[in-house]
């Protein structure tokens, strides 16, 4: 097949995918999002023979907008722009998960510093404040008391970007020093890992230790439902174990990284991802 590989940087994850694609003899057009232009009228002639585009842009804004163009050109893209939009915006994700009846941390959004402080006091300490758009645990804050709340809210209000004045406040989940990342394609789990840290943030990007995780049926079911709620696609679904039992889905990543996962499980993750992408093109009936 002819694969467009949309990127801004090639990290280990992208290299694993490119290596897998080449090993299967697929033709690859590398599309550096920083170097191409995207017309609203018609696609670049470079794109005319593409069967599918794999979006691996590191910037969520680039993914969100560049994927819209391929979708508009009727060139299939993984992930579809609607999925990127729903998952890269924590408010949209939380609303969709709640509407679908999927357990997710109790969340309230406030639009002024006064309202944010009222919300924090109402949720109680500790609670968590997160940027609406963001990743890798960046700018996430666990708030333990009123003094910290006042400082964090004031800092956010003066950071500059309007999105920091949208206060996404969540009940703190006292998880057992780890969370769970499941990489899934259209709701079907490919592999999963736990990410363990003594820090409350258990992102791999923050140095958490990864270990293979055998997916129980209830987690698989939640992943399937969460994927369906946002429109499917290739996703990294993050869950936390609750003290009272059960799980809560706290994040869905539309540009999921999988290098750490691939290193700790027996599953060949890039191979499974490419199998799924091939199946999408086969379904469309025009694999080359």
């Amino acid at each position: 097949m002819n694969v467009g590989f949309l990127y801004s940087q090639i990290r280990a994850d992208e290299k694993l995918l490119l290596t897998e694609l080449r090993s299967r003899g697929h033709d690859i057009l590398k599309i550096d999002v920083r170097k191409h232009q995207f017309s609203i009228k018609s696609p670049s002639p470079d794109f005319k023979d593409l069967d599918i585009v794999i979006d691996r842009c590191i910037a969520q804004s680039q993914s969100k907008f560049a994927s819209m163009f391929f979708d508009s050109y009727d060139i299939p893209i993984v992930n579809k722009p609607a999925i990127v939009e729903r998952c890269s915006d924590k408010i949209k994700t939380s609303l969709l998960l709640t509407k679908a009846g999927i357990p997710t941390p109790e969340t309230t959004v406030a639009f002024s510093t006064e309202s944010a402080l009222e919300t924090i006091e109402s949720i109680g300490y500790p609670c968590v404040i997160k940027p609406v758009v963001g990743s890798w645990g960046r700018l996430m804050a666990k708030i333990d008391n009123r003094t910290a709340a006042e400082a964090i809210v004031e800092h956010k209000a003066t950071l500059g970007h309007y999105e920091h004045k949208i206060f996404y406040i969540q009940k703190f989940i006292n998880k057992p020093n780890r969370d769970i990342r499941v990489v899934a394609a259209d709701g079907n789990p490919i592999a999963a890992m736990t990410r363990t840290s003594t820090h409350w943030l258990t992102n791999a990007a923050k140095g958490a230790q990864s270990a293979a995780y055998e997916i129980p049926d209830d987690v698989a079911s939640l992943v399937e439902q969460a994927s369906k709620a946002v429109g499917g696609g290739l996703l990294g679904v993050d869950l936390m174990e609750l003290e009272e039992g059960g799980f809560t889905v706290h994040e869905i990543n539309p540009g999921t990284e999988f290098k750490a996962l691939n290193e700790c499980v027996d599953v060949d993750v890039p191979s499974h991802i490419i199998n799924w992408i091939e199946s999408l093109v086969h379904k469309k009936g025009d694999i080359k």
Partner: protein
Amino acid sequence: MVNTTCVECGSELTISDDVESGEILDCDDCGIELEVISVDPVELSTAPELEEDWGE
């Protein structure tokens, strides 16, 4: 393997033959992230700084 130098500290770097345009590498000496801007010949630049919307 391909030999080149870090554009930040000038130390020698040995890079795998299968290096990709756009690939991010670390300099073992100064620790800076480097981006491969071309592969034939290999040219490096300092990698872009982290942006607020980067991530998964």
